[in-house]
């Protein structure tokens, strides 16, 4: 029973990682950059939703929708102001800028909301926890919804990328930026759209994560951001199903090693697994092998 409990916790934690990892993986896929500010967009989403529910008395779901809207705009703005002017100047400049944006967001949050941690009211406040098997198996509404949301998001996103025109354009840009432009694809719009989707999902991840683990601080996004980045690399960065599998496996390894091996070593075990996977398969579990263009 303990095993099942841990498995559910692991799936739920892994689903949060997976949703965040999507943002990393999509942005990397299309513009070949690591958007380290992604973790902090999660935090912003959490704070927006917190403020709307606490101070303006809004319904949690309405607040979630608005937080998604704000984060989407934030993602587009970041891309427009910080990354687009640097496109084509080499990856190092963009990487440093991304770290700069991350610090900028954290410190702005510190300025606006202060250093005091807030406790987030769960989206499912008042929904009873499911107890099964004589109360030994507990499934919280948060974990159930997180797992379901992850699956739904993944299916929608895969369909969007493979079936729609905009999705096709995104794939084309990620394949060959220059050729796509020659074919009449608006590259800027495709990249903006990728950032918009990734950031909107970050808001969802922020709200879900804070519902399950309710502490909200300006640094809340950084650790999950790093873990999700690991998940994206684990699954093969650039691949959407890879992000899902990477996130889930990472979450399960983390919780299982806490439950059965050692709470002190769980992070070390997670990252050791990452190293082993990368040694065996350098592009990650589902990563495509890209031939170096000379």
């Amino acid at each position, binding site marked *: 029973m*303990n095993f099942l*409990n*841990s498995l559910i*916790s692991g799936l739920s*934690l892994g689903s949060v990682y997976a949703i965040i990892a999507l943002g990393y993986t999509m942005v990397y896929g299309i513009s070949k950059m690591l958007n380290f500010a992604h973790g902090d967009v999660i935090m912003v989403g959490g704070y927006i939703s*917190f403020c709307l529910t*606490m101070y303006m008395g809004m319904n949690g779901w309405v607040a979630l929708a608005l937080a998604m809207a704000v984060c989407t705009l934030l993602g587009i703005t970041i891309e427009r102001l910080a990354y687009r002017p640097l496109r084509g100047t080499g990856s190092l400049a963009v990487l440093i800028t991304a770290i700069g944006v991350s610090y900028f967001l954290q*410190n702005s949050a*510190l300025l606006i909301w*202060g*250093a*005091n*941690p*807030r*406790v*987030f*009211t769960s989206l499912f406040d008042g929904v009873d*926890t499911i*107890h099964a098997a004589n*109360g030994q198996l*507990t499934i*919280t509404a*948060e974990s159930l919804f997180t797992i379901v949301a992850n699956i739904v998001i993944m299916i929608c996103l895969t369909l969007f990328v493979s079936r729609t025109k905009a999705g096709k354009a995104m794939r084309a840009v990620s394949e060959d930026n220059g050729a796509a432009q020659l074919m009449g694809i608006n590259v800027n719009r495709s990249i903006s759209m990728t950032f918009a989707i990734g950031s909107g999902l970050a808001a969802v991840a922020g709200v879900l*994560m*804070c519902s*399950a*683990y*309710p*502490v*909200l*601080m*300006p*640094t*809340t996004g950084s*650790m*999950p951001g790093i873990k999700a980045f690991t998940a994206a690399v684990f699954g093969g960065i650039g691949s959407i199903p890879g992000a899902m599998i990477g996130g889930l496996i990472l979450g399960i390894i*983390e*919780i299982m090693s*806490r*439950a059965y091996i050692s*709470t*002190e070593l769980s*992070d070390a075990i997670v990252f050791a697994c990452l190293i082993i996977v990368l040694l065996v398969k350098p592009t990650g579990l589902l990563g495509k092998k890209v031939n170096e263009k000379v």
Partner: protein
Amino acid sequence: MKNKKWTKFVAVVLSCMMILMMVAGCGSKSGGGDSEGNTLYIGGIGPLTGAAALYGNAVKNGAQLAVDEINAANPDGVQLVWDMQDDEHDAEKSVNAYNKLVDNGMQVLIGAVTTAPCTAVASEANANRTFALTPSASGPAVTEGNDNVFQLCFSDPNQGIASAEYIATNYPDAKVGVIYNNADNYSSGIYDKFKSEYEASGKQLAAVEAFSDDANADFTAQLNSLKNAGVDLIFLPIYYTPASNIMTQANKMGYDVTYFGVDGMDGILDLEGFDTSLAEGVLLLTPFTPYSEDEAVQNFVKAYEEKFNETPIQFAADAYDCVYAIYDAFGKTGLGTDASMEDICEAMIGVFTGDFTASGLTAEEMKWEASGEVNKTPKVCVIEGGKYVEK
């Protein structure tokens, strides 16, 4: 062409403004130590921004209140100047802040607020001979080997020992478990002492679990293993933020258990958005509670709330006591305010290691060991009806 001239003009104006601002900035900052009159320049170091900013700002405000009181009570006597610098809870920045204060003419130091930066500053201050009294850096490394550094808070080992004694005496039949933060030397320091002291009383801990730093972590694995071990009292030598997370998750699991916290638990009731009914029945070891009926505490809380619009936490009270302890001890040294930092340091060490006692908000008759540790009696409080009630 016209356009170019215009830019030049703007550039000149802007540079002039910058130079003016720099000059003005210098003026206001050096106003402390070398200023005329009978003033004692007290420097402070702590995190005013960053993740630990809550503590630094509480110290800043608490000390400011004490300084204002002392200055107003005796306008003809020694006037205190309080200058707090930010270290962002970073050891390197803390040493920079210390050097800046020394350059500005600091005579006595209150700080640093948090343990890791304080350890770095303490050895600098020892080499330079600055007297330092830290309101809240409770790690043993702060005072080790530094005869000039004293603590006003309990040291971590003392908290662990006091908690173990209290639990062993008052909950003799409880199955005790621990969740601690193994990436934080405050938490693991208390845990180590707690464990050895508790086991010395002939009992065994039922289960011990750890986590590392991340306040947003998933604690269900830890809670499940404590639950399976039949633990009914959890000792939490951690800060209140992860503690609130643990309580929320345990509640969701339907795990009903008693919590015992140390001074880091202080603040849990002020956590915005936290369902404080979850904290009902939590026991905690704390030197200060804003709900105490003590008159001095009540006056302090009232003045603090009026001035800063928030309820003071223990760090503010510690800082307040620090200022009074330094003021009283300085009076005992017989030195004038024109004495150098080095002379004040030697004289203050003499007073603190002598039979000097200080009374304040956090304890009566505090007395210091030569090692720098303070002797005071910890209070155990229980949270009832959203308030601390002394046990």
